[in-house]
C-alpha cells in the first residue's frame, strides 16, 4: 500500500475508533454535571462542575465494600483454580490411566453447557438445601468448579508440550511426583497460568448472573450487583448513577492499561475451547 493510502486508512480507522468510544465520552463527561444539566444538555461540557455525583454513588452502592467483595472472590477463585487446575492438568497429561481419560472426557463434554443449565439446581442445592446464601466462599467454590474444565483443558495441553524427559531426570535426582510438579513443571507453566488467570479473573470480576443468585444482602454484594441494585432502586439520580457506572469500570480499566497484551490474549483464549 502506498504512503498516502496508509495515511487515509489511518484517519478513517481513527474516526471509527472515536465513534466507537462516544458512549464512554458521554458517560465520563456527564458524571461531572448535576442531573438537571445532564437532562438538558447531555453533550455539552459541564457548566456547573461537580464531584458530588461520585460521593453519592460511593455511598449508595456501598462502593468500597462491593469492591472488596469483588476482589476477594476474584483473587480466591483465581488462586484455587490455578492450583487445582494445573495439578490436575499435569496429572492427566502424565498418567494416561483409563479413569483419567474418562474424567477428562467428562470435563470436556461439560464445557458445552451454558450456565443456565446449572443455574436452578445450584440455587436449589447450595442456597436451598445447604442454606449458604450470602456466603462469599460459596460463590468462590462454584466459580472454581465452573471454570475448572476449561483450566484443566489448557493446562493439560500445555503440559503435554513439556518433554517427559524432564520428569525422568527429576526422578533420577530423587524427586517424587509431587516434588517434580512443584519444583520443575509449575515454573514452566507460567505463560499458560497467565492466560488462564486472566480469563478466569475477567469472567469472575464481571460476573453478574451467578453471584446475584447467591449474594443478596448489602454487605455481600459485588460491584456488578451493587450497580444493578443502585440503578434499579433509585429513580432520577441519573448523574450519580453514571458516576457509579464509571466507578465500576475503573478498576478493570486500570488493569487493562497495564497488561493489555495479556488481557486480550487471555480473554480470547476462551474462543479456543470446544
Amino acid at each position, binding site marked *: *500500500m502506498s504512503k498516502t493510502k*496508509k495515511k487515509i*486508512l*489511518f484517519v478513517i*480507522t481513527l474516526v471509527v475508533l472515536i465513534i*466507537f468510544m462516544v*458512549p*464512554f465520552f*458521554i458517560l465520563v463527561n456527564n458524571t461531572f454535571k448535576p442531573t438537571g444539566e445532564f*437532562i*438538558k*444538555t*447531555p453533550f455539552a461540557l459541564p457548566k456547573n462542575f461537580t464531584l458530588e455525583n461520585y460521593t453519592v454513588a460511593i455511598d449508595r452502592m456501598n462502593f468500597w465494600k462491593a469492591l472488596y467483595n469483588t476482589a476477594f472472590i476474584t483473587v480466591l477463585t483465581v488462586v484455587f483454580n490455578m492450583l*487445582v*487446575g494445573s*495439578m*490436575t492438568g*499435569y*496429572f*492427566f497429561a502424565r498418567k494416561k490411566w483409563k*479413569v483419567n481419560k474418562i*474424567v477428562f472426557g467428562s470435563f470436556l463434554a*461439560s464445557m*458445552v*453447557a*451454558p*450456565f*443456565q*443449565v*446449572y*443455574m*436452578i*439446581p*445450584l440455587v*436449589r*442445592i447450595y442456597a*436451598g438445601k445447604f442454606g449458604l446464601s450470602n456466603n462469599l466462599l460459596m460463590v468462590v467454590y462454584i466459580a*472454581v*468448579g*465452573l471454570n*475448572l*474444565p476449561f483450566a484443566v483443558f489448557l493446562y493439560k495441553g500445555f503440559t503435554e508440550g513439556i518433554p517427559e524427559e524432564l520428569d525422568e531426570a527429576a526422578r533420577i535426582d530423587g524427586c517424587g511426583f509431587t516434588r517434580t510438579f512443584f519444583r520443575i513443571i509449575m515454573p514452566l507453566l507460567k505463560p499458560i497460568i497467565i492466560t488462564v488467570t486472566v480469563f478466569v479473573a*475477567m469472567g469472575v470480576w*464481571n*460476573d*453478574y*448472573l451467578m453471584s446475584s443468585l447467591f449474594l443478596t444482602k448489602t454487605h455481600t454484594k459485588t460491584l456488578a450487583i451493587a450497580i*444493578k441494585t443502585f*440503578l434499579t432502586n433509585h429513580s432520577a439520580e441519573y448523574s450519580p*448513577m*453514571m458516576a457509579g*457506572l464509571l466507578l465500576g*469500570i475503573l478498576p*478493570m480499566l486500570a*488493569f*487493562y492499561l497495564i497488561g493489555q497484551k495479556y488481557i*486480550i490474549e487471555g480473554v*480470547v483464549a476462551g*474462543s479456543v475451547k*470446544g
Partner: protein
Amino acid sequence: MAKNFGKKIKNIGIFAGFGLPATIIWASVVLIPFIYGIWITFTDWNGLAIDINYVGVQNYLEVFTDSTFVTAFFKTVIYAFFTVIASNLVGFLLALAVTSGIKGQSFFRTGFFTPNIIGGIILGYIWNFIFSYALTTFGKSIGVEWMSTSWLTHPTRALIALIIVSSWQMSGYLMVIYIAGLTNVPKELLEAAYVDGASGFQVVRRVKLPLIKNSTAICIFLSISRTFMSFDMNLSLTAGGPYKSTELIAYKIYQTAFTSMEFGKGQAQAIVLFVIVAIISLLQVYFTRKGVDEQ
C-alpha cells in the same frame, strides 16, 4: 508382588492428591447439578411447595406450546442473525485495517477491544442512558421524529438497540481472532499477488479470505453461541421490555425460574437452550477440524 502392591498404593496417593480435588469440585458444581436439573424437569416444583409431584414430560410439552417462549426463541434467532453478521463484518474490516501496516496498530487493537473488558451489565446501562436521554435530546434538537423518543420504549427499535450494542461489543473481540488469522497469511503470497497486478479488494477476496477460513469459522460459531446465551445486556439495556418484546431465551429462562417461580418449566427451557448450544458447538468442532485437515 510386594513391589506391585506398593506402586498401586503410591498411584492411589497420587490420584487422591492430584485428580480427586478437581473431580470432587467438578462433580458437586457441574455433574450433580446437571443430573439433578434433569430430574427437576419432570416435576412441578415451584420452590415453595413441600410435596413435589411428578408430571412426566409435561414441562417439555409446555416449553413448545408456550407462545411466550416460542416468541423469545424467534426473537433470539433474529437478534443472533443480525448481531452475528454485523459483528463479524465490522470485526473483519477492523482486523484488515489494523493489519495493513498503518501507524498505531496496537493502540487501535487495544481501543476497539476495550468494551470486552467491561461486564455486560455496566455496558448495557451506559447505552441505556445513551438511548433514553442523549439520543432523544439530539433527535429533538435536529427535529428527527424517530430519534426524539427513546428507542427502548418501542418494541422493534429496542431489539435493534440490543443488536447495535451487542455488535459494538463483540466486533472488537472477533477482530482479535481475525487479526490472529491475518497475521499468519504469508507475506510472500501477498507480495506476489500485488506484483501480478491484483487490486486491494482482490487480494482480500482471493488470498486473505480463503487463507483465514479457520478464524472465520471460529468467529461465526463463537458469535452464534454467545448471542444465544446473551443475558446481562438484555437485563440492563431493555430488561425484556417494552411489554416483554425483547425477552431473549436466556432472559426468559431466568424470568420463568426466578420471577414466576416455575422451576420445572424453567429448567426444561434451560435444557432446550443447552441442546441448541451443544449442536452449535458440535458443528463448530466438525467444521474447524475439517478446516485443519485441509491445510
